């Protein structure tokens, strides 16, 4: 089992100034936050500004080092963090740093480079109020020609500031590209048994993290990590090999084993973010020239790797139908299991409501709120929606768990002054909250209408029953 850290161990190493610059009034309080991973070391600025804390800083880093190291790449302001995982299963705490989805571009691309880059940069889907997006570009040196690769890096850097993964096994090509984009702190793919010396030099020279690649041989993968560590290179990402089709068993097992060793057995050499490359599907003989099948297969492999510990996934297909389920899967699996995704409580207006418009009640669980609001929007209703704080629970769960009660609704009606917005005294509650009707009427004196069980029936319900 990975060791448990006590706030005292952390506190001892902090500056102990109680200066409050971290946003918390005491160092002890900040230590507790650090242990819960609710704060970052960087927020204690004295630690970084003052020379005398240097030793403490490195000791703190060691004490707080998660079973899976956190590695950042990408330009300042748009960097992504990968790894930092603390647990094997999300129910043990939560998964940190959602899987980075990177799309490839290559140096002898025949189509339009610009439109592919723009597509990756702009693709976005709004899901329960969140923007789901792709996160990085993987630049492949396909030509084998360092100058073409350099060219690609330069072009891409003019088109976007998305984080970059430079992909080639040729140190010369990598260095050529680094000359152009080294200041954007790309992730470098990959150090192998043949080139690791050169790659470790590049990593040090440009201050970039590198991927260690040893497909099909985990002992060698760990061996490479060891020699790189000995060289002083610690910001690593591991590529144990993504085999598809019949090789999938190997892939899933090796990802799992590495994560198990890191989280359960405290194995340092396994304790790095993992890179999956579902894009290999496209290079597989079985899928060449069959784009639909490849997209399909790539999507299913990506999903499994998101669920099984990939911290980065490089993909090739950019069809929306294949990306959407994985963007959502990632969002879902990376939510905090104890904190449902919720929205701000309050009174929302839809369309242009007046004092005679209907007043509806719902909960602040994001899924509930966005389901209801999209039904209201698509029917173009003019109405008010009172979003009650149920600590992010759905209607039925919150009624059952007493997070949505008549008192709570009455309080929210008061707090958000609904009586000033409407001249009528009627409120519609969800069908699944029907049992609150009597008590709510008693508490408020308003007439309570029990709405339908599914919000898609709100428009027809209002057409039938809303009379002022």
């Amino acid at each position, binding site marked *: 089992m990975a060791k448990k850290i006590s706030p005292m161990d952390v506190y001892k190493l902090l500056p102990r100034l109680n200066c409050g610059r971290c946003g918390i009034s005491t160092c002890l309080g900040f230590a507790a936050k650090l242990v819960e991973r609710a704060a970052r070391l960087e927020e204690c600025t004295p630690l970084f500004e003052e020379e005398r804390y240097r030793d403490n800083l490195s000791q703190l880093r060691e004490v707080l080092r998660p079973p899976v190291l956190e590695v950042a790449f990408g330009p300042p302001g748009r960097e992504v963090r990968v790894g930092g995982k603390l647990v094997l*299963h*999300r129910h043990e705490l939560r998964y940190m740093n959602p899987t980075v989805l990177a799309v490839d571009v290559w140096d002898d691309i025949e189509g339009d480079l610009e439109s592919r880059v723009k597509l990756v940069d702009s693709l976005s889907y709004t*899901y329960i109020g969140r923007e789901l997006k792709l996160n990085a570009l993987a630049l*492949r040196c396909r030509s*084998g020609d360092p100058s073409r690769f350099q060219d690609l890096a330069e072009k891409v850097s003019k088109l976007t500031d998305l984080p970059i993964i430079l*992909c*080639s*096994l040729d140190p010369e090509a990598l260095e050529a590209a680094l000359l152009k984009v080294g200041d954007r702190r790309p992730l470098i793919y990959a150090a192998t*048994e043949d080139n690791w010396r050169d790659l470790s030099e590049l990593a040090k020279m440009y201050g970039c993290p590198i991927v260690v690649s040893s*497909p*099909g041989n985990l*002992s*060698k993968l*760990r*061996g*490479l*990590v*060891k*020699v790189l560590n000995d060289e002083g290179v610690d910001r690593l990402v591991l590529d144990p*090999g993504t*085999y598809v*089709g*019949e*090789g999938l*068993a*190997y892939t*899933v*097992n090796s990802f*799992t*084993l590495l994560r*198990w*060793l890191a989280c359960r*057995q405290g194995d340092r050499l396994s304790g790095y973010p993992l890179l999956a*490359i579902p894009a*290999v599907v*496209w*290079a*597989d*003989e079985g899928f060449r020239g069959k784009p*639909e099948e490849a997209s*399909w297969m790539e999507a*299913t492999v990506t*999903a*499994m790797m998101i*669920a*099984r510990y990939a911290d980065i996934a490089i993909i*090739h297909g950019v*069809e*929306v*139908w*294949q990306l*959407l*389920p*994985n963007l*959502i*899967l990632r969002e*879902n699996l990376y*939510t905090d*299991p104890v904190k449902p995704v919720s929205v701000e409580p309050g009174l929302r207006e839809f369309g242009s409501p007046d004092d005679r418009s209907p007043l509806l009640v719902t909960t602040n669980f994001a*899924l509930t709120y966005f389901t209801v609001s999209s039904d209201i929007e698509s029917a173009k209703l003019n109405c008010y929606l009172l979003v009650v704080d149920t600590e992010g629970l759905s209607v039925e769960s919150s009624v059952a768990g007493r997070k949505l009660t008549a008192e709570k609704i009455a309080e929210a009606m008061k707090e958000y002054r609904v009586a000033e917005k409407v001249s009528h005294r009627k409120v519609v509650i969800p069908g699944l909250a029907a049992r609150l009707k009597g008590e709510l009427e008693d508490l408020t004196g308003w007439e309570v209408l029990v709405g339908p069980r599914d919000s898609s029936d709100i428009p027809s319900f209002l057409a039938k029953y809303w009379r002022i």
Partner: protein
Amino acid sequence: MGTRRKDLGESFLEWLLKLLSESEEIEFEDFNLEASEFQLDVTGIASIVKPMLEAAKSMEARAIELIEELPKPEAMFTNRIAEVRIGATRSEGGSRGRVIVIGGEVTMPFYSFSALNPNPPVVSGDVFDWKLPLPKPLRDSFGDAMDDPAEWAKLYIDKFDADMVTVELTSTDPSIRDTPVREAVKVVENVLQAVDSPVMVGGSGDPVKDVELLTEVAAIFEGERLLLSSIPSPEDRFKPIAEAAKRYGHNVVAWASLDINLQRDLDRAILNVLPPERIVIDPTSAPLGYGIEYAFSVMERIRIAGLMGDRELALPMLSGTSNAWGAREAWLKTPELGPREVRGPLWEAITALTFLLAGCDLFIMMHPLAIKTVKQTISWLYGRWDTPAKAIPNWLEEM
């Protein structure tokens, strides 16, 4: 460590051999690869060979450095998940051509490095006893078979490669059609005649009607070892279903809504009537985008608890994966999201694959493409795991 050193040693020696034979000073016959013996052989030409040997040594040192054997995974689990047999052959008192066995796990899914689980998960095709409204991509793949549950069942087995079928008698619901029990039983009989695979039978969820329906099905198909679905939590009113399953030799589904404690209570109650080998649990499959994270974690927790010795949770799990079609993103006709003909089945497939990784044993599914994908993935994942089945393609340059 061994293999790597040998590789390097070999190539070095080859290279050395070539050099030496070019210089025509010495010839090696019956060349021995053992480095120590080799050293003895060449002492006579030490002046030429020494620097080369040193080079070899340093290369070898590097090779050794590059191998760090994996720590042995520590023992993980002590308990075994119950094994449930679905369907009975003629010799066993039923009429099925074959029997399906699920469960029996000794470790988490695809932790093959710790132990191997015995029974690959299976897929059951979802058949309804009425023509319920379904999204178009599904309707299109069933065609006229939807008019006849027996034909629909055959389609799953003969064409879609499902392992078994689930007959959902939802039209018995008083608020749908209130189909009489007698008629519903007839549907089950037709399906049993149409296919020789094991069969699961589901009620409508109506508490009164389900008891009437499922106890009758249990009695009439005595010995078939059906999987009767379901006994929901709390179970009090459903006890007769478990008792009928016991008397007539069937299995039951214990269904709780995403709550490990409710699940445990329910299982405990059923275990008073039936042995664990007769119970499959349904922890509720919230689909992708609509709570899949709750279902995923509840399944993982249940399986871990079961493997760690919690008898009441050491039972195989099923997923009503066709739920995935309830997600708007799966069926909405929104061209910006790509054709729903592929988006829908992918939604279903990914929902299933996610649960496969959480420990699910039986998937109730609908779309042929999703079924095919899940079946194929299962067969791959139960294949060779300790070395890759083939070389990795050169994705950097060959795509």
